[in-house]
């Protein structure tokens, strides 16, 4: 499936900003199962300095500086991407979850990169309560993917999607208590739960295809950025992406921008400005399906 994604962030400032620095994770990374056909960053006012690099996690990161006085700033990431992620391996054939945890703990050639995602991170406390919540899906000896799929489905079933009740600072403990939140909360909860069991889990930032209500045309700019969870199955099978908000395995309706330990590592747009007073933020995301590619199902 080929998508064009446009993600626009606009800041309107209360007073003039003299100097602004922005850090962007808006350019999707290339992956097995994801081909980036085109990618651009468009800013208004134009950047006085624009630098791009690969960050610690292998994501595309862009630094954008504006040093002319401005009252508003708008940046758009515009990319055309072909996606079609492989089916995960048969769950029953995956390693027992304890073995996966032991491999990650040992590090070394096969597991050192995955091991990074077993530790606590700034926005994901490893909560014992989250571990207990997950434990029901991980009885001793169960193949890891079986447990993951069940946990993914349980979060979809047992937690309620509701925006406005949580924010970026809401801790995992609170999400677990309320049993409601948005994609980022569900992802952080699942990550915390898996790490509590010693399993590597990472935060994936990206977009998901949405469908208009039956009989209505697709409305532009009404999409949102999305987040889900990458989980490690061991050296043989690597990572699988699971979306606990929707209870699905990521196949071809998700588009990956990048990943990190939690939201803070891959926040799409952040920045520091000199001056500016209070600011108003508006965001518009549009994920437009261009065409189904040959070979991709659905």
């Amino acid at each position: 499936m080929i998508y064009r994604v446009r993600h626009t962030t606009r800041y309107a400032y209360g007073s003039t900003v003299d100097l602004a620095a922005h850090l962007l994770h808006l350019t999707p990374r290339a992956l097995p199962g994801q081909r980036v056909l085109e990618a651009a960053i468009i800013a208004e006012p134009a950047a006085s300095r624009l630098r791009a690099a690969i960050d610690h996690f292998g994501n595309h990161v862009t630094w954008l500086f504006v040093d002319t006085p401005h009252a508003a700033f708008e940046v758009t990431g515009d990319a055309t991407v072909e996606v079609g992620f492989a089916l995960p391996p048969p769950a029953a054939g995956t390693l027992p979850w304890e073995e996966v945890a032991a491999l990650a703990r040992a590090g070394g050639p096969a597991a050192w990169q995955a091991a990074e995602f077993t530790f606590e991170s700034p926005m994901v406390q490893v909560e014992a309560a989250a571990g207990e919540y997950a434990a029901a899906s991980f009885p001793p000896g169960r193949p890891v993917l079986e447990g993951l799929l069940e946990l993914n489905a349980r979060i979809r079933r047992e937690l309620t999607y509701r925006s406005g009740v949580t924010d970026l600072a809401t801790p995992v403990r609170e999400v677990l208590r309320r049993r409601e939140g948005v994609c980022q909360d569900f992802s952080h909860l699942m990550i915390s739960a898996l790490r509590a069991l010693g399993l590597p889990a990472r935060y994936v930032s990206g977009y998901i295809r949405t469908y208009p209500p039956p009989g209505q045309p697709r409305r532009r700019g009404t999409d949102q950025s999305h987040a889900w969870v990458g989980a490690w199955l061991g050296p043989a099978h690597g990572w699988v992406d699971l979306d606990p908000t929707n209870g699905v395995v990521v196949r071809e309706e998700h588009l990956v921008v990048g990943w990190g330990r939690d939201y803070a590592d891959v926040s799409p747009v952040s920045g520091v400005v000199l001056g500016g007073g209070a600011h108003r933020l508006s965001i518009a995301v549009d994920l437009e399906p261009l065409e189904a590619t040959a070979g991709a199902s659905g």
Partner: protein
Amino acid sequence: MDAVSPLDEMVDGAGGFRPQWRSLLGALADLGREALAERAVLLDRFFADEGVTSLLANPAAPDRPAAWRCDPIPLILPPAEFDTLEAGLAQRATLLEAVLQDVYGPQHLLAEGLLPPALVHANPAFLRPCRDPVAGRAGPLLHLYAADLARAPDGAWRVVADRTAVPTGIAHVLENRRALSRHMPEFLRARDLRQHGPFFDIWQDALQRLAPGGAGGNPGVALLTTGHTNPLWFEHVILSRELSCALVEGGDLTVRDGVLYLKTLRGLQRVEVLLRRQDGRMMDPLELESSMAHGVSGLLDAARSGAVKIVNDPGSGFAEAPGLAAFLPALAPRLLGEALLLRGARTLWLGDPAARALVGGDLGPWLVRRAVDGTVPSVRPATLDAAARAALLHRVLAAPQDYAVSEVLAPSVAPCVGPAGLEPRPVMLRVFLVFDGSRWRALQGGLARVMGSGTLSKDVWVPAEEGAAIQGPGGLVVPALAIRRTSGDLPSRVADNFFWLGRYLERLESAARLLRASGSRLARPTPTPRELAELKSLSACLVRAELLDPEVAEGGATGLGSRPLARALVQAMREGGPVLGLVGKVSRMTDLLRDRLTGEMQLALHHGLRDLAALLRPGPAAREEAQGLEQLAEASHAVLSFAATVAGLAAENMVRGGGRLFLDLGRRVERAQAIVAELARVLDQPGAASQPARLEPGLRLALELRDSVITYRSRYLTVLQAAPVLDLVLADEGNPRGLAFQLATARDMLVDLDGDAGSPLAAAADQLLEEARGMVREVATATVQAEAAMRLPPRLRAMEGAMAALSNRIARRYFTLLPAAHSLGPAAPGGRLRGAA
């Protein structure tokens, strides 16, 4: 391990003294126990006076670090032994640099299983934005390194901690040596020690070489501090002097187009090398958490593109993880192709199952440390009771990867001056090394900390061998410096502080003058009507200077009210009163400017302010009014003489980079404002229109407050007339206490600063001067001078306003700091349910 008794640094255990101590023994015996104890007290006072603070936070008052202390007796290390240490630590620093380059680059050590992920990825000092996984990082990431060492009973020094983030204590080494030279001269006399100087030459030189364009271009080097609230502020001040680099705070810096600049009076000046003395996590709010207050947005980007070199690298704190020590013996052959020359205290990382098996269930013989956080104090399980020990074991076993254990060493003991003579006490050594571009070079000496003593330390002596070559920098040719005389390089923040120091000093002096004038009148048993009128004018001036409550001043108008007035004035000089408040403000500015004042000036201010505060603060509430007024007179006198001393010193000997100019400008502006404000009030005499004689008290006061009575008499004898008085106070440029002098001086300084005779600020000062002259001319040519003079107060008040406006314009022109940075809250991903549009 406990059974082995610690080694004694001075005696050899066989009844003899170790050779390196022998030359000190004579001087020690000559001094005697009592003299030695006295010297110890003198040394304590030295550090308290100099404001030298401890390396350790003061748990009782974190914002007021405890004073540093130095024992009179040094720790003496034989040269050959020190050279061995230097070689071992140089190798260790080279190894840590290689580890840092790997961890912040390809991470081969992790891939090969030579470093466990827990020590890297769970280490809060591993800063992901500092990693370049593609190209790797260009070194050196480590530029300055320090190690803490303890000497084991077998006589060998062992490394117990690595300092790779912001190694502290170098200034303490310098101060210890300075203190001993001053207070223990007989110890240092005729003793030839290896000197500290060459280390700073090497260091300064190495910093210059780090500049992207090399040392040739006379690069901008700056030391980054969090400012005067940093517990080790004094060390930053000393280092910036020793290294001749600018001392800057995050707020002084800005990044434009990927280049780092310092905001100075003359505009932006490029900084190419940044010696960081603050937490690496606080360097850049764009990429690192919690650095809003002290960081510079875009700094990491500038560093990444090579426009500025930051040392030590913001991520260098990673190598301080205590657990890392467990892996260094194996990493040395892998990375350097050689074994460690200098052993570390044996350390095991408990995340390793083999290490856990070795320790078993008994932590007793070990020292338990957090694996990645060296700031958490280590625990000695053997000193805990059974329950606490079991709880510790439980915690360790629940998360073994978070812990490391080290062997318990019995550090060597060295003689310290105690109440009962010399006492052997355990010491820990800190040695400092700097990378000169090709190899690591040690400061020849160091710091010995006396364990369990709080802040007590020892100077470390390395005797010089006969005919030893003098070490120097490696023959770098630094081009001749351009001669600079202007104050353009002064950071705007510093100029602002000088300006306000000038204003507060002047305000303090003027307060003392007003209080003295009022006090002397109140001291008379029965004030004459003239004195009462003067008191009324004075009260108005006191209210304007915020030294007196307006209500009390109102009461003072009647004869009956003089008693509360006297009480209020005595109170103004006491604890909580406005005068002490001003002393506090002067004191704060002096602290802020510590790096910019000469030692002499700083001591004069420090001692003067301390004495003033001591005189004013306790003031036993005098029962008798007369006694209170006497104290008032004494206190005003003390303030005035302090002000005179400071003014004299400032005129003679203070200049560091143009500070004096702003100090003086502040004084002139403050004084000019006070002159017109007070004159407006003393000329405001009701009834003077019909009886010109009523203006007389006002005229007399105008002269007295400007200290111009004698000048007036010498010119006009005792006849008081409005025009000559006003001429002296307002228009005579030759009277240093008059308005014209202030305005003319300020104008000249403003021309100087702008380097342009047409400076708009200078023109504004000129205009005020012209206006003052005009007033005097009008009064002089009036038929009735008193009448003309009485019409001045409203105009004088308007002028007071114009003066305040000028002060604001000066502030805007020279001191405007960069606007405050703030972070843009990132947007939370909405992450809707599929199909829920």
